[in-house]
């Protein structure tokens, strides 16, 4: 039997089935649930490893099931999907460990982990989708799977955040749906392919194609939190920390950004899109988002809110890299897809640790916390410097390629955006680090829990440390084979006509 045709489906099912089983587990079966979760995560990682190996060796992995006459449900492993699927399944493992530690002893864990697994299944589906309708399917599934996680705590604030999330994402999904149907009506096909498939329709459908582009991007921009569709993201930070990690790094925001990658490169084709004149407005929106998000982050006292606005800003780097027409900027955008995820997940893990261990939720409460929780804050520091773009961390590599790409594409103004954003990033991260490391700690923390000799539970501590080291490694070893940078490079050679 040839497994190549089923492997992508198996990857999706590896977490989907785990999720479905967990739903029906009684609350007390902690060990079973933990085993299931970890098994699912590791299994998925192994399968992803197989796929990476196969893609490198030019295997063709494609699952194709009929969905409608003329439209198939396609799951396919190509260069881009491998990039995203590796990111999300790798970070999922880390997040699962973290979530197990984080939610220890809290109610409704079966529900939580069930939806958690569904959420990742949907993300992997988004990553592996081989055409626009499959993408849409998993994209909406992601919306549905995430909502219960956001309102998990059941407080009024959580409900409000959930409502905001739904309002934005369902409306966005509707726009995406309209765009997809319209495109299908014109093109008669929705298959992703390198350098796009709509270019031959250019005669006579120019205006329609521009409108469809706007619809698709608007639908995706909601999840990618581009201004003015971003305001659900800071609200959603009321969710538990693993969910924030999922929202900001692994799944939701990334799905939006990845969708934009797909639309620009594999539906329209970057060169055709540039010819239509739609990339410059997109770049402008991204630039505005970068600056706006950073400015808002500057004034937040709530730590997670600050991080959320930071995400708004950082994710737009990806979009910016995509919208700048040129191979180098493409590398920057794609590599930031991975780098931002790793860095931001570190920061959210750390924020969660602070909240869980010491009850710290605000920046103003963080004085001297570096002495109390050195490992956590060290990880936070690495993440923050990565976000600022300090070499040799991961963020530097992204910024480097973005800046270089901007110069390459003749869009010098982007350099100023990057510079301004770095300045603002420093402006909202460095005071935190300063307070944490150099200010005197208070006599008592807001709500301290003791974990014996360790600063906090190991399941909470290991994930941020691992991702912080990963941040370092992604920067230091950027030129090593199989690094995200190398993947992004090879994708770029596929997306630009020789």
């Amino acid at each position: 039997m040839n497994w190549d045709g089923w492997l992508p489906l198996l990857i999706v099912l590896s977490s989907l089935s785990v999720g479905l089983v967990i739903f029906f587990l009684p609350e007390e079966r902690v060990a079973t649930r933990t085993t299931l979760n970890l098994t699912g995560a590791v299994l998925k990682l192994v399968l992803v490893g197989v796929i990476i190996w196969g893609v490198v060796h030019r295997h063709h992995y494609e699952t194709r099931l009929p969905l409608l006459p003329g439209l198939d449900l396609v799951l396919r492993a190509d260069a881009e999907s491998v990039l995203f699927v590796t990111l999300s399944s790798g970070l999922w493992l880390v997040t699962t460990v973290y979530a197990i530690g984080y939610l220890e002893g809290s109610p409704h864990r079966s529900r939580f982990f069930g939806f958690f697994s569904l959420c990742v299944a949907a993300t992997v589906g988004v990553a592996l989708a081989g055409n626009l309708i499959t993408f849409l399917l998993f994209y909406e599934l992601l919306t549905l799977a995430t909502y219960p996680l956001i309102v998990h705590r059941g407080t009024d604030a959580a409900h409000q955040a959930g409502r905001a999330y739904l309002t934005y994402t369902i409306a966005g999904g509707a726009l995406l749906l309209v765009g997809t149907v319209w495109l299908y009506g014109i093109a008669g096909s929705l298959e992703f392919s390198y350098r796009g498939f709509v270019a031959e329709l250019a005669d006579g459908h120019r205006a329609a194609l521009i409108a469809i582009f706007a619809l698709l991007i608007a639908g995706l921009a909601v999840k990618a939190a581009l201004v003015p569709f971003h305001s659900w993201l800071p609200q959603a930070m009321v969710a538990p920390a693993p969910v924030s990690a999922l929202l900001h790094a692994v799944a939701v925001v990334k799905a939006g950004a990845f969708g934009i990658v797909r639309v620009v490169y594999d539906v329209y084709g970057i060169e055709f899109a540039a010819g239509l004149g739609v990339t410059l407005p997109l770049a402008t929106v991204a630039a505005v988002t970068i600056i706006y998000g950073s400015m808002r982050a500057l004034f937040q006292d709530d730590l997670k809110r600050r991080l959320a606005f930071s995400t708004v800003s950082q994710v737009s780097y990806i979009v910016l890299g995509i919208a700048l027409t040129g191979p180098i900027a493409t590398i920057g955008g794609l590599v930031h897809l991975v780098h931002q995820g790793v860095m931001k997940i570190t920061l959210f893990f750390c924020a969660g640790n602070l909240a869980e261990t010491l009850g710290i939720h605000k920046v103003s409460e963080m004085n001297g916390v570096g002495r109390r929780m050195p490992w956590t804050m060290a990880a936070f520091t690495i993440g923050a410097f990565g976000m600022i773009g300090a070499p040799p961390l991961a963020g530097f590599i992204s910024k480097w390629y973005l800046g270089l790409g901007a110069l390459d594409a003749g869009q010098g103004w982007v350099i100023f955006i990057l510079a301004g954003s770095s300045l603002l990033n420093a402006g909202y991260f460095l005071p935190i680090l300063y307070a944490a490391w150099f200010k005197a700690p208070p006599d008592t923390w807001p709500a301290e829990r003791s974990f014996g000799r360790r600063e906090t539970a190991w399941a909470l501590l290991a994930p941020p440390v691992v991702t912080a080291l990963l941040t370092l490694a992604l920067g230091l070893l950027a030129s090593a084979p199989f690094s995200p940078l190398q993947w992004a490079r090879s994708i770029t050679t596929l997306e630009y006509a020789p």
Partner: protein
Amino acid sequence: MAAIPWGVMAILLPLAGAMACFLSPRRASPLGLITALGVVACAAGLGWQVAEQGAQRYAIGGWGAPLGIDLYADGLSLLMLMVTAVVGLGISVYSSGYFNREKAVNFWPLWMFLWSALNALFLSADIFNLYVTLELLGLAAVALVALAGGADALTGAMRYLLVSLLGSLAYLLGVALLYHSFGCLDIALLAERMEPSPAVMAAMGLMSAGLLLKTALFPLHFWLPPAHASAPAPVSALLSALVVKASFYILLRLWLDVFPVTAAGLGQLLGLLGAAAVLWGGLQALRQTRLKMLIAYSTVAQLGYLFLAFPLGSNVAWQGALYLLLSHALAKAAMFMAAGNILCFGGHDRIADLDRVAQRLPLSLAAFGLAGVSIMGLPPSGGFIAKWLLLEAAMRSGQWWWVIILILGGLLAAAYVFKVIGYAFTQAVMTHEARAVPATMEWAALVLALVAILLGLVAPWPLALMEIGLPFGGEAAG
């Protein structure tokens, strides 16, 4: 195997079941369940038969078309029959737990009777037979609504009865005019002999109006929410899922076969009313404070979608509408059942106080949520496929304004579904206490909802079935 008249059996079996239940009230429930299984088997047999041999025609008593009564099964009627079988089985399982003995005695015969009428309606090949089955259906449905007792239910049932009779009479008058003009009742013969004349127009007006009234198209939906909301849960489920669809089915048949006049203006009118229903029903559902009323208004909105196919008129549009009909039948039945569980457990269905109850019934809430996904038209669900087909048809025909309606309707649906779902997530800790709701009731709802979701993944099969006998005319698929 091939010679067995599965279609006739699908009518006779529930009729026999009704008799049996009536004669042996103590064993009504198991008898009903067995009959339900039997009907499902009949539907499956007919499905196999139709898929293998194409459209089936039975001449009852061997008389043949102009004089005798014919039964006809093509893809359209087969699908209706099958969805009725699936939902019917679900409702039967659910009801076996829902009714106490006293109510069950009345429920089972009526329900079996209604099922028989439904199957007969979907298989009828002539317009007078359709009238008779429509009336039988209406009477059984009214009696079932009244089963709940209480002022609300009785008034609702009375109103429903009057409306139903009025609609049927209007339809019958139309039948008379058609018979006068062409001297036959068989749909296929009528289609052959059809030519426009004032009498035909009057007939079309009367029949359409009567059927629209029974289908509760906006603004004629006034009777639906009170009747559906006040009936017992399984009855609400079957009314919303199946009974309103029966009159729509007749309208569809007439529209497709008997009146092939290209009445573009009328199509647009129906589309407009459908659009108004989508928006109005959605808004009203959003405004409701009681769960069952919310679901009932949601039915009003969803019925509106069905009429959006009329102005589009293409093969894809009909497929979309029919697919919506299927998935809505399943999803809405699941929703009403879930609401019934909540009502049963908590003793009320005020949305604002749902949290405590919703916490304890995770399966019912899951059923509601999954059904809601289909109602909203989010993937992967039957509702999504239907919406996709309708959207595609609208885009293809260049009538983009229906796209806006479809999208707005979906957003409104999301708003009212999540208004309910949100209550599942509260800080209250789940406690383990004895449940008043039997597991069968929870699982029946969940399974139906799952089937509605599953419809989104197996779309090619139902769509291929629909094509059997070319109910939508000879236009190529896609």
